[in-house]
């Protein structure tokens, strides 16, 4: 088995900009690492923090949220709400020991296929450096009942 950790990133994309940017990256054959799996939504405003938490809890090492640039939202200004939500979620996650780099918001217009590919590449590297989150594994460990480490400490 390889020693190298390959993160899995779930990406939420806006139907009008970043999903099209991903399409464009494809059409232009721009390469980026295969660690990301995209989900198409109509707008980044549809991104419910629940989705992000769900992805992390199901084994994603990080979540990328992408939307239209501020002022360019196809639904006028919904991406600002996304920005507020992500900011608050990041604060809560920081308190829970989850590095803010694991939840990232990137603006990408439909024309920015190359930029999106670069952002994905950068994020994969950042998350690789952070190491696995492996939430399902952690939870399995946490609920296994075994010898308590403190037992030996105190008895010894």
């Amino acid at each position, binding site marked *: 088995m390889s020693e190298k950790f390959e993160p899995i990133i779930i990406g939420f994309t806006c139907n009008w900009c970043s999903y099209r940017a991903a399409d464009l990256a494809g059409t232009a054959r721009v390469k980026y690492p295969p660690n990301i799996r995209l989900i198409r939504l109509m707008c980044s405003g549809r991104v419910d923090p629940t989705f992000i938490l769900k992805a992390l809890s199901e084994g994603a090492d990080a979540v990328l949220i992408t939307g239209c640039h501020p002022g360019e939202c196809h639904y006028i200004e919904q991406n600002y709400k996304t920005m507020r939500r992500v900011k*608050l979620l990041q604060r809560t996650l920081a308190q829970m*020991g989850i590095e803010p780099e694991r939840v990232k918001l990137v603006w990408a217009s439909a024309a920015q296929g190359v930029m999106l590919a670069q952002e994905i590449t950068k994020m994969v590297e950042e998350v690789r450096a952070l190491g696995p989150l492996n939430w399902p594994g952690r939870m399995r460990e946490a609920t296994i009942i075994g010898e308590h480490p403190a037992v030996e400490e105190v008895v010894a």
Partner: protein
Amino acid sequence: MSEKPKFAMYWAASCGGCEIAVLNIGEKILDVDANFDVAFWPVAMDAKYKDVEEMPDKSILLTLFNGGIRNEENAHMAKLLRQKSQILVSFGSCATEGCVPGLANLSSREEVFAAAYDSITSDTLGIRPQYSYEVPEGTLTLPIFNTIVRTLDQVVDVDYYMPGCPPESHQIGAVIDLVIQVLHGQAELPPKGSVIGAGGSTVCDECGRIRNVKKITKFRRLHEVAEIDPVLCLLEQGILCNGPATRDGCGALCPAVGAPCAGCYGPAQDVVDYGARLMTAVSSVIDSNDPKEIDRILDDIVDPAGTFYRFNLAHSLLHASKTAVS
């Protein structure tokens, strides 16, 4: 001996408030006595775990289980009572969501012990619970303190959920009435997995405060508000109120007296993650599109995890902080 069906109530990792709430139902307790034999209720009558172990499986009709699963004793009793009960009710916020004890899931076990044994008392000997201790009479054991607090339904199958910290007495009374009606063939039990003793909407439904379109520019903690408007929605006054995301059934007692809803009745129907709902709602109505100003406004929320997951952390999607499960 009577042929009355058996009733049990148990107290795991919780404060005891749920027990008080049951006693608070007043004369209705006589109906309980008239219709049930109390088989096991440690807080009210003497009983040994051995007695429960000896009961035939499913011999208890109704068990109200309050408290979360913090240690192996809690887990053992949850499994035992599941085995012996026909209907197991996750009673109160601790059993259902982990409640305030569940906030320990933000910390590692060692941090919890350090807080409990090193910071409270004046002795700093680093004493920790000893799970097994030899005395002349034999070996004394303590139940293992688990890594994280779990809710009852994370350990055993649960039939019904009754939220609240504690459940309101009138709601307990109503549930007891329903069960008695079912016993007499006058009513049917709700579908398994239902939330009972609560409403289907949120606290705002029961709150009498005036509500407008919300635009928040500053969050304030209660002590920072010079004068609370007696009729206006607390959230609109910048006071973080969990009412919009919290299941109704309590009668909106807290906001009625000017205290924000803390969220003890848990998430509304079908909500997957309570904290996520609150975070998304609160951030959605921040009245700014400027990243720096948004950050400034959010700075006023000093303890987001504790605020948004005060009652619900153990039942949230993540259950715990990374520190707790590292």
